[in-house]
């Protein structure tokens, strides 16, 4: 952080729209499957033909209850749907059905980690609402095209308190939330398709001063854009204030191409939504028995699992968090640990390292999900076993990992045999190589004797190279020390 930024405190609150994983819309029986031809999934209710009435989808309420339980929030025994009024062609009713005064979920929060710091982000509320359609502005001889397939898609809007103090914290929160909603199966988390999108409310103030005026950055659909947009907005606001200009409340858009935010043109009345209870929808009642039933069906939550991994397997909070980023990763880990246990290998930390390191890197590179990983838990444990019993070194293990990943072999042991990668731990085999290297590098030997430790490493490097990395590194160290001392 620069000195200038240190004089400012950043205040961030996030509003996230999570698209709920149902089959049909929130108030109609039209499908919400992604990718249909325009308006093929927009029924009479979605296009707001006169006389139609909304009927609430029960599963959207189940999703909201699941979420409320997962974040330790209050679930309203009685909540109300309201009309949020504004005119836009992709909102054919002239209002969006949302919740205002009595949302289905209120309070609760999420623990986030930034570096070694843990922080709790409080939630204000989460409410059910319908999505709008899409406007296509290009190419219709001066007209706008409207696709209402998305109209009526169920959303849970999740609103935080202004608890975050940096873009890093905002991203950590968004990631934790993303992981949670996908974990409990209420949202597919697909950010490219818009299933999970964030609006960031950003303001700056002098430490201790009252809250500054906020600007809202709309529709951020990647973690990277969220970070970039907030960082740009912070700098912009600090500049404005330092140059004597006041910040005006505004809605802004982030342009990924320029990396800048810009204010949307909006009329002064644009935010006068005139909410009122929707007379077409009766109050939603959620009885304690219903909540209990949903609670019984909830999986172990990521934070509970993290705590268990730390206690049971002595993993660091960082490792535990990485392994619980998605259910499939946790399943992969637990399956691997079980296989290792069956072989009497006490290696949860090693398994965690492989998954969080090499495997995650490979999956990211190829854009694959761990569920479809070509490397299975069986292969990974087989590989770890070969390191544990001294057949290969860690360095060679990385090579064998590549072979397994590329599908050129199923079994680490067989690959090692077929490719002659077995570690050489036989002093009789290593010693002549050491002698040859020492003879060929008199200068390094001199330097070492003159007290340069670096020369030792250089010699080890030469020996490992001469054995194609197959010599047992510990043994090379010991033998070399003995020879140089002698």
């Amino acid at each position, binding site marked *: 952080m620069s000195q200038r930024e240190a004089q400012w405190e950043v205040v961030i609150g996030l509003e996230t729209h999570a698209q709920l994983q*149902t*089959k*049909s819309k929130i108030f*109609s*029986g*039209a*499908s919400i499957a992604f990718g249909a*031809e*325009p*308006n*093929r*999934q*927009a*029924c*009479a209710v979605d*296009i707001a*033909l006169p006389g139609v009435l909304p*009927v*609430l*989808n*029960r*599963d*959207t*309420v189940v999703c909201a209850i699941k979420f409320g339980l997962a974040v330790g929030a209050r679930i309203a025994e*009685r909540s*109300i749907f309201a009309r949020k*009024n504004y*005119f*836009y*062609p992709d909102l054919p009713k002239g209002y969006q059905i949302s919740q205002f005064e*009595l949302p289905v979920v209120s309070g609760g929060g999420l623990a986030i980690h930034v570096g070694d710091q843990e922080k709790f982000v409080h939630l204000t509320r989460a409410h059910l609402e319908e999505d709008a359609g899409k*406007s*296509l*502005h290009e190419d*219709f001889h*001066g*007209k*706008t*095209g*409207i*696709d*209402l397939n998305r109209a009526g898609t169920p959303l849970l809007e999740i609103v935080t308190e202004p608890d975050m103090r940096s873009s890093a914290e905002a991203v950590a929160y968004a990631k934790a939330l993303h992981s949670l909603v996908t974990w409990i199966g209420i949202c597919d988390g697909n950010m490219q398709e818009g299933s999970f999108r964030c609006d960031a409310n950003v303001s700056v103030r002098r430490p201790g001063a009252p809250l500054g005026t906020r600007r809202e950055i709309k529709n951020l659909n990647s973690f990277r854009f969220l970070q970039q947009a907030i960082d740009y907005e912070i700098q912009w606001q600090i500049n404005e204030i330092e140059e004597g200009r006041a910040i005006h409340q505004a809605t802004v858009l982030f342009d990924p191409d320029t990396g800048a935010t810009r204010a*949307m*043109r909006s009329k002064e*009345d644009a935010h*006068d939504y*005139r909410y009122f*209870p929707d*007379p077409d*929808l*009766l*109050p*939603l*009642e959620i009885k304690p028995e219903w909540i209990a039933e949903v609670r019984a069906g909830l999986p172990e939550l990521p934070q509970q699992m993290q705590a268990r991994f730390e206690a049971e397997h002595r993993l660091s909070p960082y490792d535990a968090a990485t392994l619980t980023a998605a259910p499939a990763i946790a399943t992969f880990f637990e399956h691997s640990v079980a296989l290792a246990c069956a072989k009497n290998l006490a290696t949860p930390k090693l398994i965690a390292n492989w998954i969080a390191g090499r495997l995650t890197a490979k999956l990211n590179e190829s854009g694959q999900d761990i569920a479809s990983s070509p490397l299975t838990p069986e292969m990974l444990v087989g590989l770890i076993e070969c390191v544990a019993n001294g057949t290969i070194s860690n360095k060679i293990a990385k090579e064998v990992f590549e072979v397994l990943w590329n599908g050129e072999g199923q079994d680490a042991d067989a690959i090692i045999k077929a490719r002659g990668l077995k570690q050489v731990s036989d002093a009789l085999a290593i010693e002549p190589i050491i002698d040859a290297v020492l003879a060929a590098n008199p200068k390094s030997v001199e330097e070492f004797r003159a007290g340069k430790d670096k020369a030792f490493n250089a010699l080890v490097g030469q020996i490992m190279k001469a054995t194609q990395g197959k010599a047992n590194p510990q043994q090379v160290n010991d033998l070399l020390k003995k020879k140089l001392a002698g």
Partner: protein
Amino acid sequence: MSLSLDDVSRIARLARIEISPAETEQTRMQLNGILAFVEQLQAVNTEGIAPMAHAVDVVQRLRRDAVTEADRRDAFQAIAPEAEAGLYLVPKVIE
């Protein structure tokens, strides 16, 4: 509470209703008449009574999550003022 002419113009603008200056005064009087009724209602002591969100004291019936609507795009677009490539066309919208 009573509304000014400015309030009425603003409400009309938000509702996208065009009213002439003469109508504005007439509308103001009518709306203020309605607000006067509400004021009478407000005289009732409602302390300790939970506000109702609906005139009928029943709760929402819920629908099972299932796709029950068939694609009727062609029928809907036949009565739309203009449609092309499956899209409803409207006058250009500038954000």
